[in-house]
């Protein structure tokens, strides 16, 4: 089973990389892109039998390692 983990900075935390990317896009002629938030994407292959089991395992490792709860939050999707 595959668990997908999306890690992003919390909305209250300034994102220097996203800001720099936004500025670059404006310079390239895309003023319509008002804001960019930069994040990370992980694909975990897990031996879980059920989606709930996969989700629980992904949440545990996301909390302990993949995300830093001080500045980041995460979202999980599970695929068969």
């Amino acid at each position, binding site marked *: 089973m595959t668990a997908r983990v999306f890690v992003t900075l919390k909305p209250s935390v300034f994102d220097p990389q996203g800001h720099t990317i936004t500025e670059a896009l404006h310079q390239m002629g895309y003023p319509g892109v008002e804001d960019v938030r930069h994040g990370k994407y992980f694909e975990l292959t897990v031996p879980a039998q059920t989606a709930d089991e996969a989700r629980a395992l992904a949440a545990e490792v996301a909390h302990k390692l993949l995300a830093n709860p001080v*500045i980041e939050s995460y979202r999980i999707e599970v695929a068969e």
Partner: protein
Amino acid sequence: MNFAIVVFPGSNCDHDAYHAAKHVLGQEAHFVWHKDASLGAADVVILPGGFAHGDYLRTGAIARFSPVMTAVQAFADSGGPVIGICNGFQVLLEAGLLPGAMLRNTDMYRCEYVHVRVEQTDTPFTGLCTPGQVLKVPIAHGEGNYYADDETLDELERNRQVIFRYATSSGEVTAAANPNGSARNIAGICSRQRNVVGLMPHPERACEFALGSGDGKVVLESVVNALARA
């Protein structure tokens, strides 16, 4: 005094720390590989600068799970003086030995001399400083933008845990003197018990005038003095 200098794969200021402790201060110093479970005979622990595990995932995120960190945690819990410099500071934050986290610098990687104002002198690493003393020390980092939520920042201020702030050469804390966007110009903090210190600038690289500044020497001299008096 015996300085234990932890070496992670990717540390690159370990030898600078060793040189400062051993050859400038004339103390005993030894390296400790990150997979070792023991710090050996240690009076002080230095987590040096560099790029532990290539800064993969987040700075310090992998290093905090190295076996040696259990020993560092126990050493810190027993009141032993621990200093994390640059990447070492990032490791201490990820390990939860100090509060907060690092974000990318607001603009870019910065490698230059800065000035920091000493805010508190009752830590093992600032005991020989005078309050408000300004130190000229180098920085070299892309992720030194110190972040903590307002509640945590207020708590740090209340407990006098902010020990270094980026300032002008005359000691004024201004936005222009802040090289990386750090909250409240914070360059270094200490733990609630005051024995664990983390800072982004490199005092160990500023211990000899021949290298551009001798201002950092007082940080390591302070801990030698603190231990000699203990």
